[in-house]
């Protein structure tokens, strides 16, 4: 009886906001008081949406297979700045500039904003500064896309409590040769963070941005509710990499919205390694002819982790293409969910869309769920999807062992061969090597 009583919510109304109370919101808003009034109004409206929307329920198809009992809004506090030592990342050396945020607050940067702007006209600054100096760009692109994948409540929460994040703007025709990186740290027990990265690539611009999400202490419980908006203008090339490496006690949400205009090429690669329960929603819109979106993800799941990935790629114009490849390696009692949907609008003829989910089962207790979907309303298209769930190919294993490679080593080689199909898409060699070594460490640990 006692366990039953405990599992019951105290009352439906109380449970809608959890730790994210009106007082907490008022405090967060007070910290943003210097920002434009229109933005504060948007935040207020977002909070009202958050506070009124119900938590996801069993009958919600957007949450099929997800563990809803572990979704909680209780026991967290909004992260505020604490002076902390941030170890220098190996990435600082290979990236042109870095921005670091700790607990929703800007902490450090490697190159002054003015220096970068003087060189190329690129704006690489905090969202707070951008809200003041580049309001038009922010209005047009920050959280401007609808939520379509089921997390309305959590996207509203993100908007309400979003205090700061990274803003990257590459002007027309400018090619940023070196990657730009952004670090988001969470530190302190029970801290809630709301990281955000907004990337705008204007006509024919080219840029690579890498986002890193880390917990300062591996033992802390965190609540992370982050997002990114990627806007690729005509003919631009936008590469976005994200490495999610929160502590193993973190509840994580990430929302992506990508817009690709005429002949734009967007590549987004999400690597998921951290959190105890992580949901990632990715929404790509191919709005004009020639647009191409490459959606890649790599998940290394261990312990009792649950990774819940939902994607939507909408082809709204003729002659657009998209390619999705989500690979999951499942160890221990981990669980993954992949739910993807390709939508081809009635006039989007000559669409070429592909969607693939590969689950590598490395344990007898792991669970992989796949929901690859198609909604096609044009006939002259090429749309395919495929999903497989299986262990390492025994024949390949045998082949390697027959050549004198030890079983453990053979298995590792094959697993990395499995990862390389995704990692190989990163053009920047140093970035590729760095990410590979991080994953190698994750996998071995």
């Amino acid at each position: 009886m006692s366990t039953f009583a405990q599992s019951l919510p105290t009352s439906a109304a109380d449970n809608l906001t959890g730790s994210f109370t009106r007082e907490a919101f008022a405090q967060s808003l007070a910290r943003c008081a210097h920002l434009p009034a229109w933005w504060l109004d948007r935040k207020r409206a977002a909070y009202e949406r958050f506070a009124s929307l119900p938590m996801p329920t069993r009958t919600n198809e957007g949450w099929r297979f997800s563990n809803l009992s572990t979704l909680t809004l209780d026991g967290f506090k909004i992260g505020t700045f604490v002076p902390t030592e941030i170890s220098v990342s190996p990435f600082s050396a290979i990236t042109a500039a870095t921005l670091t945020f700790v607990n929703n607050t800007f902490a450090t940067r490697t190159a002054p904003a003015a220096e970068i702007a003087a060189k190329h006209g690129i704006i690489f600054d905090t969202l707070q500064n951008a809200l003041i100096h580049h309001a038009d760009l922010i209005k047009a692109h920050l959280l401007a896309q609808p939520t379509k994948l089921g997390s309305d409540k959590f996207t509203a929460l993100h908007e309400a409590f979003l205090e700061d994040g990274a803003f990257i703007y590459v002007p027309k025709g400018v090619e940023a040769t070196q990657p730009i990186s952004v670090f988001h740290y969470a530190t302190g027990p029970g801290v809630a963070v709301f990281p955000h990265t907004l990337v705008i690539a204007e006509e024919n611009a080219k840029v690579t941005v890498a986002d890193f999400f880390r917990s300062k202490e591996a033992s802390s419980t965190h609540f992370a509710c982050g997002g990114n908006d990627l806007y690729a203008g005509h003919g631009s090339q936008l590469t976005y990499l994200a490495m999610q490496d929160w502590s193993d006690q973190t509840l994580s949400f990430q929302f992506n919205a990508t817009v690709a205009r005429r002949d734009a090429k967007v590549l987004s690669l999400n690597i998921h390694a951290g959190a105890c329960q992580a949901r990632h929603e990715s929404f790509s819109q191919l709005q004009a002819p020639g647009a191409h979106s490459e959606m890649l993800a790599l998940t290394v799941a261990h312990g009792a982790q649950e990774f819940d990935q939902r994607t939507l790629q909408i082809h709204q114009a003729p002659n657009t293409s998209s390619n999705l490849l989500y690979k999951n390696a499942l160890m221990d009692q981990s669980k993954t969910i992949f739910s993807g949907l390709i939508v081809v609008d009635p006039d989007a003829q000559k669409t070429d869309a592909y969607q693939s989910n590969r689950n590598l089962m490395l344990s007898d207790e792991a669970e992989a769920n796949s929901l690859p979907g198609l909604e096609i309303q044009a006939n002259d298209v090429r749309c395919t999807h495929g999903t497989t769930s299986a262990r390492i190919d025994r024949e390949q294993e045998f082949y390697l062992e027959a050549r004198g490679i030890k079983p453990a080593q053979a298995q590792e080689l094959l697993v990395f061969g499995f990862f390389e199909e995704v990692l190989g898409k990163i053009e920047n060699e140093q970035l590729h090597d760095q990410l590979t070594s991080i994953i190698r460490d994750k996998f071995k640990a």
Partner: protein
Amino acid sequence: MKPLTEIEPAVETENPVVGIDQTAGNFSYKVDYAFDAGTGLSEDTVRYISSVKKEAPWILEFRLKALKTFFDKPMPTHWATKDLEAIDFQKIRYYLSQGQQPKRTWDEVPDDIKKTFERLGIPEQERKFLAGVEAQFDSEAAYSNIKEIVAKQGVIFCNSTEGLREHPEIFKKFFGKVIPTGDNKFSALNSAVFSGGSFIYVPPGVKVAQPLQAYFRINAENFGQFERTLIIADEGSEVVYMEGCTAPKFSTSTLHSAVVELVALKGAKIQYITVQNWANNVFNLVTKRGVAHEDAEIKWIDCNIGSRLTMKYPGVVLKGKRARGEVLSIALANDGQHQDTGAKMIHAADDTTSNIIAKSISVGQGRSTYRGVVHIPKHLKGCKNNTECDALLINTNSRTDTYPAISVRGDKNATQHEASVSKVSEDMIFYMQSRGLTEAQAMSLAVNGFINDLARQFPMEYSVELKRLIDLEMEGSVG
């Protein structure tokens, strides 16, 4: 029984293109029904049906419980189409019967019903050939003739009402076990108001050489058919069952909600073949599932051409080791139609295998949907699933959707799923046209080619019927 009073004229003029009379199913007889439960659904409707059928008290109780479940369950519109809301359950007739007993010979079948079959285009020869036919006219079987050989082998083949009355010891043991009343809203509805359908029991080791067939027909406006079919193949036996449907066209919606349960005991094989061609105003919401025990095999061959909305996902629960399940599905959706079909494979034992091949064709504004479930739970090993879904879109405004759900646990199983969407290649059409075919003929040929490898698995007469139906549906889709 009152005689036939009037024949309603066919609405369209005859159109004998490609040798098929398009208006063949487009008629209805004004029939005076001896028993009629009226329109609407309530406890009284259920009590009425049960009393007319002189059922045992446990069946009435079962029905009433199911009715409550039906009222309690919400419409599954959180995942299914909103079109379901167009069904007005209070405007539907739930039971009609002419009160006739199932007939054993063709001569005993009343003339008016014979006429109905004639209009359906079942040739004289075929009628004789269909020796094991269980022809269902509305709720009750109007004609039933168990082929002598089949009866001699100890096979029971009758309608479900008769099965309940005469073989309760077998019926009760399996009835409602594969598909529980509360499985979904429509299985609950069927459990409350079911009548008709087939009951088949094949004794151990018996291999039924002749496929058992049943023709279904709806013949009253706003009248839904709620057949209940139960097929039990005892150890080591084999049986093939076929059903084909056609219905007259009516302006207001009709509802068809059947429940089909199959049980294949150790080493048994069941093949269930459906050609569904209801009229374009019929809601066809069917629950079909089989349980395959050790070394047993269940194969669903499902072909959907008619209806306004079909929702049907034949399933197999692979309960015993090395059991095999297969679903072959063909769907054709024309203007105003939504074929929401698919398959469910529930693996529940080691070394079980399942195969799903689904092909759909969308013509005009037709919409075809594949929905599937493949479930492999914990601690099983050697389970395999293969799923292939191919969709063909004929016109620029045709639509197709694919929503599979695959859950795999553990590293000792393997699943693969592939789906593709395409149109008929212009090169192919050009090639055929350059050899003198019209565009329509070329298109028809290409579509028949697309489903050919599946259609070949159908028995001869069904395969021919299917080809004709596709030719008919493809008319006017190009140019």
